[in-house]
């Protein structure tokens, strides 16, 4: 009984230690369970896949660097998919802290693997303050909001932007976000301008997005690192997400173990207290 009481009131640092061990264990013993694809992830993949090759897709980097573990693999997998299909990619970010820098680094890295040329096959518009003004403004004219790209090159000097003037020239918007920005893309851009939108979000935000997928306002959804792993599997490019699934699996199992342990202790102490009273 005393044992269960101690278990119920265990110092939280033992819990932290268990989680730390469960996350580091798969680094030593690689298990690799197969990743199964969910219908919503398949929907997003198909939406991009069905676009004609050489379509223009807008890929947004609306996440802070702290969520990069979940969202960066999504962006990387998306770029692989788009460049494999010879799509032209326009990237931008509504997050001032890190978004455009991450976009610049990742797109250049992935584009180099496919011999894509900056300004012809892809452009990074960078960041502009006030997402409301940006999202509404892009409907009229991209150049009115972004007169130059992230590297301060005027848009008129970039051949890709000759044929991409506003949302009418964009086939799909792929939002990768860790915050409410994806809500604004749906409320402003999809609802008011009818541009199809799909998104990859962190696992915390994903449950909310199911209602938008269900209502048809969003075409497809990736949720957390599992979603990124699903997309990597579909694209055929194993990356950090698939490799991270083992650690996430062990962490989930550790939490389930703790929950079960806590409940056994709860019932054991309650039963004993009932008998004593």
């Amino acid at each position, binding site marked *: 009984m005393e044992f269960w009481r101690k278990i119920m009131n265990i110092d939280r640092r033992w819990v932290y230690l268990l989680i730390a061990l469960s996350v580091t264990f798969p680094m030593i013993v690689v298990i690799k369970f197969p990743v199964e694809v969910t219908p919503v992830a398949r929907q997003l993949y198909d939406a991009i896949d069905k676009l004609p090759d050489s379509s223009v897709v807008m890929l947004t980097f609306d996440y802070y660097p702290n969520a990069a573990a979940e969202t960066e693999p999504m962006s990387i997998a998306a770029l692989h998919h788009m460049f494999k299909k010879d799509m032209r990619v326009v990237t931008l970010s509504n997050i001032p802290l890190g978004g455009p820098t991450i976009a610049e680094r990742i797109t250049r890295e992935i584009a180099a693997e496919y011999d894509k040329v900056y300004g012809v096959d892809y452009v990074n518009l960078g960041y502009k303050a006030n997402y409301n003004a940006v999202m509404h403004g892009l409907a009229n004219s991209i150049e009115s909001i972004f007169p130059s790209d992230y590297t301060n090159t005027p848009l008129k000097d970039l051949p890709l932007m000759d044929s991409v003037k506003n949302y009418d020239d964009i086939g799909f918007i792929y939002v990768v976000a860790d915050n409410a920005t994806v809500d604004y893309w749906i409320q402003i851009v999809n609802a008011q301008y009818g541009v199809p939108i799909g998104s990859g979000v962190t696992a915390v935000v994903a449950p909310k997005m199911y209602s938008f997928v269900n209502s048809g306002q969003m075409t497809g959804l990736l949720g957390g690192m599992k979603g990124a792993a699903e997309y990597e599997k579909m694209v055929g490019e194993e990356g950090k997400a698939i490799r991270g699934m083992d650690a996430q699996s062990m962490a989930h199992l550790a939490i389930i173990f*703790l929950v079960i342990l806590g409940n056994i202790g709860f019932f054991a102490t309650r039963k004993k207290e009932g008998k004593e009273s």
Partner: protein
Amino acid sequence: MKKTVPVVVAFLAGFVMVISFFFNTEQIMNWLSVTFGMDSLHGKTMEGFVLQWVTIVSGFTLVLGVFSIVRVNARAVAKKSEGWFYKLLTVVSVFAMAIPAMLPVSKDTVGGKIVFGIFPDSWRALFGTGPTSIYDWLFTYLDQPMMETMFAMLAFFIASAAYRAFRARNAEATLLLLTAVIVMLWRVPMGEAFLRLFSDSLPNYIDLFIMNGFNVAVQRGIIIGAALGAASMSLRIMLGIERTYMGKG
């Protein structure tokens, strides 16, 4: 005046945004520019003006923040109160990132001529926010890892919160606990493989009934309720009924 002007500004700004949703304000502005000969209005939208003002005012308030952080921490440093060294570090960090980022990278401007009169030309790459700048280095090698570390702490905090909160105290708590365990299993390959031992379709049923069923219903209820609450609050603010946020009762 002090009470009236903010209410009037709130009403006008809100009214312009509402009008912009229902009317093509660019057409209205074009008509006004033709009728009254005001060329500067041509091609503009009403909401564009409001959004521009928001951006300008936001920019000025950044200065307020810097004053506040310096004043609060400098006072503690001067008094040598507890933890004064960390407060000094805070103030130094603010300027260490801001000053190099604001320095010009080109000699063509007036500021550039002054700065590169003092510093050697080879230091140009260190200024501004480019890939080789001090700002970028501090962000990539200090700020970013610290942000990622804080975010990673969530994993530990979730475990301790789940351990404490997921107890089958009553029927609702039991339902919460069971749903959480099922979804935690479903969301990882190892757990999904375990669920498939019972039935190959079990993960699909979880997706269908829990994520696309109960979850969507609850999320929609909360989203609709919150949206109505927000709309009601916005209307009260626009009409000047709710003024507590201004500090007026």
